[in-house]
C-alpha cells in the first residue's frame, strides 16, 4: 500500500519522554552522546540488571488541574501533555479553529493495560466490592486520545490503533488520509505508551526483555498535520512536508525481497533515516537503504510500541530545509512502514501557490 500525501504539511511536533518535556530535551540529549535510560529498580520482578526510559520528570499537574489528572491514566497524561505542546508549536489557537475540523489519530501501545491491572487487582484482593468504577473507563486504549480530545476540544475524526511496534505509524497514515479525503483540516497524530513495573514483569516472563535487548521506554510523541491549503491560510510555521507512506503487513517466505521493494517504492534519496520498532534487527531493510545519517531514538529514550510518534517528530526536527528523510518502522513479524518527509520551512506553501485548492470532498 503506497499513499502519496504531498499536500499535507507538518506544522508542529513535540514529545514527552525520558529526556524531559518538549523536543528541545530530546534534541539536546541526541547531540550529547548520552542517553536517558536508568536502572530498573531491583524490586521490580525481572528488572534486575535492566534499564528503562521512564518519563520521571513529567508531572501531569504541569498540564492540567490535579482534579482532572486524578481521573486519567498515565498514558492519557502523556498524550494530553504532548499534544498540547505540539498544538502550541504549530501555533494553533483552538478558539479560532472549527473544532469539528480538527481530530486525533493516535497509536497506543500498552495504553489501558496498567489501569486494567489496577482495576482487576481490586477484584482479586477484595471481590466485586474492590472494583473501582473510576478506573474502568481508562482500561480502554482509546482513553488517551479521547482524553486529549476532551481537553483540547478536538471534535473531528477520532481513532486509536494498536499494531505492535508500528502503532503510531498505523495512526499516522489514517490521519493523513482523513486530511486528504477532506474529513479534517488538521490532525493531531503520533503515539503514546506508559511503562509500569508489572509490564517489566510481563516482558521478563515472556522473554521480551532478552528479545529486544530491554530498554523499554514510555512517553508520547505527537505531530500536528495540516492540509497545505489550511496551513497557508493561517500562515502556519511549516516544519516539513509528508511524502509517500508505504506499508506491508508481512514479508512472506520466498517473497521477502518483493516486499522490501514495495516498501521502498518511490524512495530515491535519503539524507536522514529514522528507525523505529525493530528495524535495526531486520537486515533486509537496513541493507536496502543508504542514508547519510541515522537517528535511533530508542537507543536514548527506550523502545515502545508507539515510539514512532517520537521518532518521526525527532526526524522532522533534525531535517534541514529540502532534505529528504525516511522513517522506517518494523515489528518482528510485521507490519513494516516507510514514511517519507521533506524537511524545513523551505517546503512551506506560500498562500498564492495553493489558492483555490480544496481538499473537501
Amino acid at each position: 500500500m503506497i499513499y502519496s500525501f504531498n499536500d499535507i504539511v507538518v506544522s508542529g511536533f513535540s514529545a514527552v519522554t525520558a529526556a524531559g518535556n518538549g523536543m528541545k530535551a530530546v534534541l539536546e540529549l541526541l547531540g550529547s552522546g548520552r542517553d536517558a535510560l536508568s536502572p530498573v529498580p531491583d524490586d521490580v520482578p525481572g528488572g534486575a540488571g535492566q534499564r528503562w526510559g521512564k518519563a520521571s520528570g513529567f508531572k501531569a499537574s504541569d498540564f492540567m488541574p490535579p482534579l482532572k489528572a486524578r481521573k486519567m491514566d498515565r498514558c492519557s497524561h502523556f498524550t494530553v501533555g504532548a499534544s498540547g505542546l505540539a498544538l502550541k508549536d504549530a501555533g494553533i489557537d483552538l478558539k479560532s479553529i472549527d473544532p469539528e475540523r480538527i481530530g486525533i489519530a493516535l497509536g497506543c501501545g500498552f495504553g489501558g493495560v496498567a489501569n486494567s491491572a489496577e482495576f482487576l487487582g481490586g477484584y482479586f484482593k477484595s471481590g466485586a466490592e474492590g472494583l473501582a468504577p473510576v478506573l474502568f473507563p481508562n482500561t480502554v486504549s482509546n482513553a488517551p486520545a479521547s482524553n486529549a480530545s476532551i481537553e483540547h476540544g478536538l471534535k473531528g475524526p477520532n481513532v486509536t490503533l494498536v499494531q505492535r511496534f508500528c502503532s503510531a505509524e498505523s495512526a499516522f497514515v489514517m490521519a493523513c488520509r482523513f486530511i486528504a479525503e477532506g474529513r479534517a483540516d488538521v490532525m493531531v497524530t503520533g503515539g503514546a505508551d506508559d511503562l509500569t513495573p508489572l509490564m517489566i514483569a510481563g516482558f521478563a516472563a515472556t522473554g521480551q526483555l532478552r528479545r529486544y535487548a530491554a530498554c523499554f521506554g514510555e512517553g508520547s510523541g505527537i505531530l500536528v498535520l495540516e492540509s497545505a491549503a489550511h496551513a497557508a491560510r493561517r500562515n502556519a510555521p511549516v516544519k516539513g512536508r509528508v511524502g509517500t507512506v508505504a506499508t506491508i503487513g508481512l514479508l512472506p517466505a520466498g517473497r521477502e525481497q518483493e516486499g522490501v521493494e514495495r516498501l521502498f517504492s518511490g524512495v530515491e534519496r535519503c539524507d536522514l533515516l529514522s528507525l523505529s520498532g525493530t528495524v535495526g534487527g531486520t537486515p533486509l531493510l537496513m541493507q536496502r537503504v543508504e542514508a547519510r545519517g541515522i537517528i535511533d531514538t530508542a537507543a536514548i529514550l527506550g523502545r515502545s510500541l508507539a515510539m514512532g510518534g517520537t521518532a518521526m517528530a525527532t526526524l522532522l526536527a533534525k531535517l534541514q530545509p529540502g532534505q529528504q528523510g525516511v522513517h522506517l518502522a518494523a515489528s518482528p513479524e510485521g507490519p513494516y512502514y516507510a514514511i517519507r518527509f521533506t524537511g524545513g520551512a523551505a517546503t512551506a506553501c506560500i498562500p498564492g501557490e495553493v489558492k483555490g485548492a480544496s481538499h473537501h470532498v
Partner: protein
Amino acid sequence: MVKKRVVITGLGVFCGAGKNVAQFSDALLNGKSGIGPLDLFDVSAFPSHIGCQVKGYDPLDHFDRITARKLSRADQFGLIAAAEALADSGLSETYSPFDMGISMGGGAAGMFQAERWLKAQLVGENAPPVLLRGVLPDKTATEIARACNLAGYQGTVTTACSSSATAIGWGAELVATGQQRAVLAGGSDTLSLLTFGGFNSLKVVDPEPCSPFSLGRQGISLGEGAAFLVLESEEDAVARGARVYGAVLGYALAGEAYHMTAPEPTGSTAARVMRNAIAAAGIDSGRVGWVNAHGTGTPLNDVVESHAMQLVFGERIPSVPLISTKAMTGHCLGAAGAIEALATVIALNHRIIPQTLNFRGRDPECDLDYCHEGKRSCEADIAMSNSFAFGGNITSLVLGI
C-alpha cells in the same frame, strides 16, 4: 481521485447467537437470542449472571492442542470467522498476498487469559507466560494475516465499542482508493472478567436479557464473538464472478470531546457523524431505509441515539425504523460493529428489518419505531449501522445491496 465502489464478497461470523453465517442468519431472521447464563468465569459476585457467551466451545474442534495453547480466545474466534469469510469469498490465490490486507477492530482481546496470569502474580504463584501472548488486540490481526497470507495492510483499531465499525470503514477506504485489491475487515472480542466486572461496577448491566429502547431497561448484556467481511472493488468482484452480498457505501467517525463515559445529551455529534456517513455514501438521507442502532439498552444511550436520529431524519423519522440486535447477540464490544454490520448486510439481502427483542413496554422518552413487535419486510436497499464507544468515539457505516 475517483473512488471505486466497494462490495462485500465474503461473510464470516462466530458468536453466541450463531457459530457460522447460516446459524447467525437463522437467529437474526427468526428472533432467537443467544443470551443466557454465563459459565466462562465466576459471575456469582455480580448482580447480573447472564450474557451471550459462545456455548459449547472447544478449541480442539478448530485447532490442534499446541496452536490452541498459543492463541487467546479472541484470536481463536477471529481466526474461525476470518476463515469462513475468506472461504465464502472464494478469494484464495486470486490476488498477490501484498494486495490483500486486514483491517480489524479489537477490544479486551486476550484479557480473559491474561487475567489468570495477573491473579497468579498478585498471590505470588507462577502462571504460564503464554497467557500474556494475546493481551493486546493486534495479536489477532497478526495471527490472521500470517495464517491467511495477507501481506498487505495490517491494522487494528482500538476505539472500544466502535472499533470494528471503524475498521470496516477504513478497510473499505483502502479498497476504494485502489490501495488494496481485497481487505478482510471486521473484529473479534471475547468476554472477560475485566469488562464484565467493569460494566457491572458502572451499574449499567441489566440482570435480565437487555431490552433496547424498551421501558424498564436497565442496561447492557455483554457478549462475545467475531465477524469479518471480505471487501473488494466491484470491478474486481465482477471480473472474477464473485458473489456480491452488498456494498460499503460510506462511513464517518468523530469524537464527541465531551465525557469519557457519558454521551453528549443532545446527540448532536452522533447526528453529525450519521449525516457525514450518508454524505460520504453519496446519497440523500431519504434513501436510508432503516438503522441498525448502537442500541445498548442503557437508559441514557437509547434516548440520546433516538434524539440523534430525529436530528438526522427530521419529519421523515416515523418511517425510519431504528432496531438493535444487541438483545440477540449481547454487546460484543470490540466486535460489536462488525457483527452488526454483518447482520445489516444479511437483513438487507433478505429484505427484512429484524425485530428488536425483549420488549417490556413503551418508553415515552424513546418514541420512535423500534420494530419491537416482530420482524417486517422492507424493500429498502440501504441501511445504516451505528457504533458508539467510551471516550465519545462514534462511527456510522452506510451499507447497501
